[in-house]
């Protein structure tokens, strides 16, 4: 059965073979570096969660409430995306290492960068408006 036929008949969670059955064991240093990158994404998610909770609770005088809510929402959504994407990113990288194929960066860094730029610009706008007023 070709992979295309199997893709049509099998449920999505059975399309990919188990990780240990793919390719061959890579250099252990790459596997460990991949694990540390996964943990770094988890810590990023934790930091974003803390930022979202803090901005909605710790700085009640910082700008209008709708802006604080917006900032908190953006930070929490980014935290969710980072936490959810960290595992799939790790598995994709591990499969690429095992098959000796190139590592695809994925969209996660781009989404995080865009979201953080939006948060920084909104924060800067509040600071400038409050300083001018």
């Amino acid at each position, binding site marked *: 059965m070709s992979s295309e036929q199997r893709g049509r008949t099998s449920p999505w969670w059975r399309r990919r073979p188990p990780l240990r059955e793919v390719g061959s064991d890579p250099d252990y240093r790459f596997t460990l570096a991949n694990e540390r990158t996964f943990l770094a994404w988890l810590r990023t998610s934790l*930091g974003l969660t803390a930022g979202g909770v803090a901005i*909605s609770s710790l700085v009640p005088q910082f700008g209008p409430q709708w802006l604080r809510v917006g900032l908190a929402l953006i930070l929490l959504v980014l935290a969710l995306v980072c936490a959810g994407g*960290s595992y799939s990113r790790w598995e994709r990288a591990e499969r690429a290492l095992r098959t000796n194929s190139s590592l695809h960066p994925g969209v996660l860094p781009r989404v995080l960068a865009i979201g953080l730029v939006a948060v920084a610009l909104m924060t800067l706008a509040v600071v400038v408006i409050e300083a001018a007023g």
Partner: protein
Amino acid sequence: MIDGTYDPGQPEWTLPDLGAAAERTSLAWQRSGLGMIAVGALFVRVHQGPRLLSVLLGCVLIGTGILATALVGPWRYRTILAQVSAAQSPTSRWVMALAAVVICAVACASFGVVNLG
């Protein structure tokens, strides 16, 4: 005991970096655990939503952080050394999946803790 000498004729997995790579990974787990404890303390102390949800989230994060710091970090160090010395891949898929699920659940539940009104 891992031999710290470098022999260019040996395969790559016997390089002296083995202990250091395992140690870095173990420390990364412990840093992540400390981060969980810190964010858990934030949830317990600062909240604007339901008090019970906030305290529950904080306790889950602190408990997971203590596990990651005190158990998973040292356990990963030992298993990495053992698996690499036995020429096996030191992958720990289920521990990572569990950590990702916990952090995902906390990120989801934190929408209920912040004041969105």
